[in-house]
């Protein structure tokens, strides 16, 4: 299909061809997608929102401090359990079954896990903890195993024969990987804070709970206070998350989860043996199953998949554009110290605001369509990639007589960072899709919309099938992205 392009000189490079293909695909999606600002006064609302952030009200709700504490506690417990389980899984990651299992659990978004657990654990801390721990275990398993695989084999070979497998592992493999394991885990903890905060949107007592209430009522100063608290929390991580303090936090965190409502195990059994069994099978008429399933697929799964893919492809390319525009903001080859500091602040805000929160805010301000979602996904992910390649571009040494300004950007830097830029972008493809699906909960007609509708109708059988579809789609995109990266010989480190 791309044969025709072979005559155009630029298309000789595989990288350029792939890029152009994705841009063209996004433009086609754009033509078919629902993109609009439907509010009468979007800018007025946006100004009111910014004014709210400028005049934060930290004391309107007594629960805010508790919410902050819960956000931290859920994240610490969830990430700790996820890391522990992930490490154990990483040791047996060579088995195909383990890899498939991990791919599956991480393909389901934290919010979907939370929605599932809410149905039988209800408002118990375990709901929030497991919603983080389970997908994180899948991610940790994958990344840990990659890190362990890349460890230097030499020390192991030098050991005398007769050394046990465990000793060999602990004394040769771990020391070599320790730094990387530590860096990745602490990075993941930051992701955990974000995940924990958005769990509030489905009713758990974290910061998202207050943000949603304040925002939906137009109390922008309260919403501003929650956002500022959140940014401060993320920005000060290096100050208070110290290796020596970590054991203390981990031991203390379980006691600050709150008590919620008691768990009733009968509810758990009921969920697995009745609720998620497709309705026609429950009533023993198994021939009714196929019409039921095809109705679900035709009217919900397919439209959901279609919209999810449309939005994902647009968001992917928009992310790339934002990242390429944003990285000079922090690159040492452009601007001065002051402008770079400003750039850093902008990118920190963009990347530490979860897409879900950004999309929620923009949807409130601009009205429902795919536009707020595309912008939210592009800002967050573009902020992350822009930060990473901006940092990388600063390590590049330029000749003293190198061109300046636009020429420097176009001819010196972009070509040098482009491969890693693409690697990050394709790595995040799957992440963008996971988020796209979940944004449906906010009312965009992606898969999450149909999952949420099924849950609102107390039809968990339908919800589970749709979540399964979402997971499979995600696994498919993950596989495709890996093939493209291999094909273009792109390498990257994991981001969240």
């Amino acid at each position, binding site marked *: 299909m791309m044969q025709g392009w072979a005559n155009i000189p630029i298309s000789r490079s595989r990288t350029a061809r792939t890029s152009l293909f994705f841009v063209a695909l996004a433009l086609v999606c754009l033509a078919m997608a629902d993109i609009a600002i439907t509010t009468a006064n979007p800018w007025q609302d946006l100004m009111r929102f910014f004014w709210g952030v400028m005049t934060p009200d930290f004391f309107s709700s007594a629960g805010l401090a508790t919410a902050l504490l819960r956000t931290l506690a859920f994240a610490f417990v969830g990430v700790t359990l996820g890391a522990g389980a992930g490490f154990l899984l990483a040791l047996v990651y060579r088995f195909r079954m383990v890899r498939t299992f991990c791919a599956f659990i991480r393909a389901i978004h934290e919010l979907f896990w939370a929605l599932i657990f809410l149905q039988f654990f209800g408002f118990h801390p375990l709901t929030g903890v497991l919603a983080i721990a389970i997908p994180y275990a899948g991610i940790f398993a994958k990344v840990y195993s990659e890190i362990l695989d890349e460890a230097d084999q030499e020390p192991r070979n030098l050991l005398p024969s007769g050394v046990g497998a465990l000793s060999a592992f602990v004394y040769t493999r771990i020391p070599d990987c320790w730094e990387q394991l530590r860096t990745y885990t602490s990075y993941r903890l930051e992701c955990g804070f974000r995940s924990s905060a958005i769990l509030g949107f489905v009713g758990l007592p974290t910061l998202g709970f207050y943000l949603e*209430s304040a925002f*939906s009522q137009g109390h922008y100063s309260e919403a501003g206070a929650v956002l500022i608290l959140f940014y401060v929390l993320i920005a000060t991580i290096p100050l208070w998350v110290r290796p020596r303090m970590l054991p203390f936090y981990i031991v203390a965190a379980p006691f600050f989860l709150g008590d919620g409502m008691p768990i*009733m195990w009968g509810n758990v059994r009921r969920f697995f043996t009745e609720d998620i069994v497709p309705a026609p099978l429950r009533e023993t008429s198994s021939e009714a199953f196929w019409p039921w399933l095809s109705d679900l697929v035709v009217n919900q799964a397919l439209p959901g998949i279609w919209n999810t893919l449309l939005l994902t492809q647009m968001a992917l390319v928009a992310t790339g554009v934002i990242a390429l525009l944003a990285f000079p903001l922090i690159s040492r080859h452009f601007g001065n110290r002051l402008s770079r500091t400003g750039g850093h602040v902008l990118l920190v805000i963009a990347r530490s605001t979860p897409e879900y929160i950004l999309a929620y805010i923009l949807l409130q301000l601009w009205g429902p369509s795919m536009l707020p979602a595309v912008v939210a996904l592009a800002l967050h992910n573009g902020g992350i990639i822009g930060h990473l390649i901006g940092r990388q571009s600063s390590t590049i040494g330029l000749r003293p007589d190198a061109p300046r300004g636009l020429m420097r950007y176009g001819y010196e830097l972009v070509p040098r960072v482009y491969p890693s830029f693409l690697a990050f972008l394709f790595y995040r493809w799957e992440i963008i899709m996971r988020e796209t699906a979940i944004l449906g909960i906010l009312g965009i007609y992606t898969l999450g919309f149909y999952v949420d509708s099924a849950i609102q109708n107390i039809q968990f059988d339908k919800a589970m099938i749709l979540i399964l579809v979402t997971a499979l789609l995600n696994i498919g995109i993950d596989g495709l992205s890996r093939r493209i990266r291999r094909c273009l010989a792109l390498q990257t480190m994991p981001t969240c």
Partner: protein
Amino acid sequence: MFKKILGLATIAAAMQTYALSAAADTFVFTAIPDQDETQLIERFGAVEAYLEEQLDVDVKYIPVKSYAAAVSAFRNNQVQLAWFGGLSGVQARRLVPGSEAIAQGVEDPEFQSYVIANTSTGLEPMDELSEDLEGMTFTFGSKGSTSGRLMPEFFLREAYGEAPDEFFSRVGFSGNHTRTVRLVEAGTYQLGAVNYKVWESGVEDGSIDTDKVQVIWKTPYYPDYQWTIRGDVDERFGEGFKDRVTQALLDMDDPELLKRFPRAGFIPASNEDYAPIEETAEELGLLN
């Protein structure tokens, strides 16, 4: 060292509250989040205090973020009493055999939804839904709402013979009634369906700008909100507890408290009162 001691003390304190709160048997209730949270917390905070005084047990209200969460909490016995809408009540009672509708508002047997329109549409109040609405944008309230979704959708389908998302150019779910009014007022959606009680109290207290949004159509009457209680509360809180709760709800006569619902008072209800809602929901595929 000091930090460590402080830390340990905090942990001990936290553990203590943990143990205490788990021990007492508290009567917990919830409500569908059909309006802004501030309004819900004011309303149900007052009900919490009232019931505690009347029943002589610890009573607690827990706020939830969705209609389904209210139903699930009731089903999972994490709450024993709930202020449901017509549809959520039917869902809950189907899922919890033995549960009962025990009280409803004086207005609830003859409830209504209003279709509201931004004045920029130029639409005038009408007796029959007109074809002029075709192609406009429309928002429901919550997906699980009776007055904000189920009944308006039913009457729209009846009038136009097709699904709302085919007749209108864009269909959304605002989340609750307060938001529906706000979105139509702001012009985000041209039309919306809203609980008539929420509309009228908003007009009365001046929070709705009737120059920007007005009622263009009223649905026929149907039964809506009710208090529903689990069947097993007598076993847990003592013989006759259900009757005492019912009586307490029916006796609620503090005008301040009633105004927050807003209802004139409460009257007895039964599960059969909501049969029309059940049929409609089955017809629309919202109930299995």
